Structures are given as structure tokens and as C-alpha cells.
């Protein structure tokens, strides 16, 4: 990565030859807060560190490694790669989230991977609201060589999803990836539209949707927690993808999310191209957050 994280930069030179006393711990807690972990989790992690190292001399690198391992311990149980091409047939995967978080792009990236695996998939342009959302998904479908089912802008999204699943069952497809319109979680009307999409899929397959992927933007702050809660409640989120980790934000709020919700994190987005999707790794995420092993790779 080109950048070192804020936390990493902040740590550089901070602890060289310094005793891990109350002042130092406070500085450290501040740095964690600056990575969007939130006040509560930051203070918890700092307290954990203090348990074993309070008043000891500690180097920058030692503190980074210790921090990374605290974070990794929280994130490790959430690390769960998923192979959408496997499992029930047709596997119905719904992508949900707030506006602009990266849903459509993430579907495009996954579609490209699936094509390489030789899976028979169908993309569904369930965002029937936003201008040119259908065209955007269509371009990704063409790139991946996977068909896209759509209806004109303004059509009922739930109806489209119903038809898509019927079609996938009829044609014995491996999976159906459903794009949905971005919606803010506090908008009751839009959230009930999403609930309707979920209900409709169940009519054709009581186990569907098999995956409901919440797409979170790495720049988001504490609002991510409310996003997870609301989308879980409405759509039964089964897993998370975090996008835009290639920018200056390192998505620290994911630690707070992981503390509060036993939801697997499947992938991270690190760019806008098809190949810019990686399986989530607790260790890599923790290291990137504290700026470990990044300077070396410049």
C-alpha cells in the first residue's frame, strides 16, 4: 500500500524509549479513536495492553505488534471466506447497504471471479431507482460475461427478483447475485421495500436469500454500527464486505462492529477494478490498521 495508516503514522516515534504510563496509554487510546474504533473499544484495547505492559519500556514496533495482536484477536473469529459458487442451487445472494457504499462494484468484482470458476450465474439489476444503475451493472455483467436481468427504471424491484429466481430455478443456474438500491437505514419506507424483496425470495425458496451481504464503506464512522443493526433487523444480514480500503481510511469501525456482532466478514475492496477484491484477513487488516509491514513494502 502507498500510504501508512493514520494510526501507524501517529505511532511512529511516539513510544521510542517511552514508558507505557498513564500519559502514554492516553495517547495510544487517542490514536485508536482516530482510526474510528470508537471510544469504548479503544479504551478496552488500551486497558488490555496495560494489563501486561503497564510501566514497562516499550518500542514503537513492540507496541504495534501488541496492538495488532489485540485487534487480530477480536477480528479472527469474523474471518470467513465464502465461495458463492458452492452450496445450494440456485444460491441467492443479496447485496444491501447505504447509498454509494460499493454494492454494484462488489457484485461486478465477484461476478468476474465466478466466471473464472466457471459458475453459471445471473446478475439482477435490483436497483430500479438510481439513474443509470442498470447500465452500470450491465457493464460489469458484460465484462464478466455473465447475463444481467433487468427491468426499466421505476419497476418493482421485488417483482424483478422473483422473476430472476424463477428463471434461475428453471435454467438450473448455480447462483443469483442481486443488486439493490442504496438506502439509508433510518428510512422506514425504503427499508420495508427491502424487507419485501427478502419476503418474495422466500416464496420461491424458503431458505433464500442464502446470503445477505452488507456492503460497508471504509470511510464511514460510528454510523456503521447503526447500519449493521438496521440491515440485520430488516434483511437478516449474513456477512459483511468492506470497500474502499485503498484510501486513507482504514475502516477501524469494523473492530467495533466485530465486537458487537457475530457476523462474518467475507471480503475487502481495495480499488475499482475487477481484481480489487480480497478475502478478509484478520491479520492483514490488523496490521494495516496499526501500520505494520507497510513502510517496508513502499
Amino acid at each position: 500500500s502507498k500510504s501508512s495508516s493514520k494510526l501507524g503514522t501517529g505511532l511512529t516515534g511516539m513510544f521510542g524509549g517511552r514508558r507505557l504510563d498513564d500519559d502514554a496509554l492516553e495517547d495510544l487510546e487517542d490514536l485508536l479513536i482516530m482510526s474510528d474504533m470508537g471510544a469504548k473499544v479503544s479504551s478496552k484495547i488500551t486497558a488490555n495492553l496495560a494489563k501486561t505492559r503497564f510501566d514497562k519500556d516499550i518500542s514503537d514496533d513492540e507496541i504495534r505488534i501488541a496492538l495488532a495482536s489485540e485487534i487480530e484477536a477480536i477480528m479472527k473469529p469474523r474471518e470467513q471466506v465464502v465461495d458463492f459458487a458452492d452450496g445450494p442451487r440456485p444460491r441467492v445472494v443479496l447485496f444491501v447497504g447505504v447509498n454509494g457504499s460499493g454494492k454494484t462494484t462488489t457484485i461486478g468484482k465477484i461476478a468476474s471471479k465466478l466466471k473464472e470458476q466457471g459458475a453459471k450465474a445471473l446478475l439482477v439489476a435490483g436497483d430500479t431507482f438510481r439513474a443509470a444503475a442498470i447500465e452500470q451493472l450491465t457493464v460489469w455483467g458484460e465484462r464478466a460475461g455473465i447475463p444481467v436481468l433487468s427491468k426499466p427504471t421505476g419497476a418493482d424491484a421485488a417483482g424483478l427478483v422473483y422473476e430472476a429466481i424463477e428463471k434461475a430455478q428453471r435454467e438450473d443456474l448455480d447462483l443469483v447475485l442481486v443488486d439493490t438500491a442504496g438506502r439509508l437505514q433510518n428510512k422506514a419506507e425504503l427499508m420495508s421495500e427491502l424487507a419485501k424483496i427478502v419476503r418474495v425470495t422466500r416464496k420461491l425458496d424458503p431458505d433464500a436469500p442464502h446470503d445477505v451481504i452488507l456492503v460497508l464503506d471504509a470511510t464511514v464512522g460510528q454510523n456503521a454500527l447503526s447500519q449493521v443493526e438496521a440491515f440485520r433487523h430488516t434483511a437478516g444480514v449474513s456477512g459483511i464486505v468492506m470497500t474502499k480500503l485503498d484510501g486513507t481510511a482504514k475502516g477501524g469501525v469494523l473492530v467495533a462492529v466485530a465486537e458487537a456482532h457475530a457476523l462474518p466478514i467475507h471480503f475487502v475492496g481495495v480499488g475499482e477494478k475487477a481484481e480489487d477484491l480480497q478475502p478478509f484477513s484478520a491479520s492483514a487488516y490488523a496490521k494495516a490498521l496499526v501500520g505494520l509491514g507497510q513502510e517496508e513494502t513502499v
Partner: protein
Amino acid sequence: MFDALTDRLGGIFDGLTGRGALSEKDVSAALREIRVALLEADVALPVVKDFIAKVKERAVGEEVIRSVKPGQQVIKIVHDGLVDLLGGEDAETRLRVDNPPSVIMMAGLQGSGKTTTTAKIAKRLSERDKKKVLLASLDVRRPAAMEQLAVLADQLGANVTSLPIVQGQMPAEIARRALQAAKLGGHDVVFLDTAGRTSIDEQMMAEAAEIAKIAQPKESLLVADALTGQDAVETARRFHERLPLTGLVLTRMDGDGRGGAALSMRAVTGLPIKFLGTGEKLDGLDAFDAKRVAGRILGQGDIVSLVERA
């Protein structure tokens, strides 16, 4: 969902009401709560620290000692301090569009709301100010980005048109073509909607700087998501370094986020916040209002009536 600040401060201030004077110790206890509230609202930590220091200076003083309800007085000081930091009650939010064709450049991170905001401001300028507006998408990267702007322009009536799409042109070429078309077409305002970019993508930031150099925009607006966390300062600072920014737009204020990013970005750049995005639809645009945003950040809409009730 969030505790209102008054609830949190309740305990501290209950004890103080009627006593009539605030010691430094009392103020510090209250400010610790305010610090947490601001952090929960996603105000960036360095901004929080500066702000708290200033409030403390003001609070531990005569003003407070003389006031009858010292607790409420601290909240008022905090609120007024936020309004100040956000640019004051009559912050200048008008756009400079008096020299046709005036160029307005839109920039920001991926998915922040640039294209939608372009159409929203165009709608406002054409309907309220009777301007003839040209919209040009310089986003040659994201699938269907240009089509998106064209579709939005079509929804906006005869006074708003979009520059015809020519495949294969580079952003700088499109900018030149847009300026030319605006001159020939007698447009008052021409919008350059740029592709989303991260602030550390050197090539893309250089491209944006080049576009600004060519187009000499009267207004360059950084469009940012109001739900942004601590990264708001980093993004604002880096875009401000590279582009001749003249203002900020915070989108998704219709969410239930507390919008601390507005304060962070304003504090680090000193740029006025011109608009707030309040929905997906093209009428979802409000002129910036510092009091409203301050109340929002503190988790309570109407501070003034609260103070008056006290």
C-alpha cells in the same frame, strides 16, 4: 438512539444548578462528557481537542459564574462555539456564478454524491436563478457514470443540458470541450463532474489538478459523505492541498448520522459549507445552516429552546 447531551450532563449539572458558580473541576467533568459526545458524532479528535480547550477557557470565567443556571450556560457556550466553528449564523453559502460561463468543478472520494449533487445544484440554479446550465461528466472510469449524469440532466427541463458523450476522450479534453460548448451555447454555468478518487491516488489527484488548471473554476466543491468518520480531516486536507477548493458539500444528511464530519472538514480547511444533501431525489438539497448542524452534532435539535426552558 444517542443519548442527548443534556441527559448525559444531567447528573453533573443537577448538582450545580442553584449553586451558581462553576469551578474548573466542574467544567472539566462536563467537558469530558462533551468530548465523548463529539467523538460519537464522528468529529475528528484533533478538532475535538482544540474545541474543548477553547470551550474550557470560556466556561471557566465570569460569564458562567454570573449566570443563574451554570450547567445550561455551558451547553450554550458549547453550542455557540460549534456554530462559530461551522462558519457562523450567516455563513456565505451563495455560489459565484456571475461571469458566464462560470465553471463549477465537483470533486471527492468515490461514491460521495458528486454526480447527484451536480444535478441538484443545477436544478436550483436553473429554477431559482434562471440560469442556463451545462452538465459535463469527466468520469471516464466508472461504468455508466456519464450516462448517469445525462439521465439526471434529462429530468431537469430545457434549461439544463448535458454535454454529448464522446467515447474515448480524456477528462482534460472533455473539460475543454465543455468550456467551448458553454461559450458557444450561451450557458451561464458549466458543471464539471469528476470521477471519484482517493486522495492518495497520485495519478488521479494530478488529473484533477490539471482539470482545475484548464477550466479555472469559479467554484470547486468538495463533496463528502456526512457519515464519514475520523478520515474526514485527512480527505479534506489532501483535496484542499491539491485543488483550488472554494467550498464543501455534505451529503446524506438525511441519514441518522450525527454529521461530525462537517465540523472536521470545515475546521481543517476553513472552507464554507455551502450545501447539505438531504436525499436521493433532486430536490434533496438544503442551503447550509450552522445552527441546525451544531444541534445535530450535539444530538439535540433545538438547543435554544432548551436553554430558554432551563
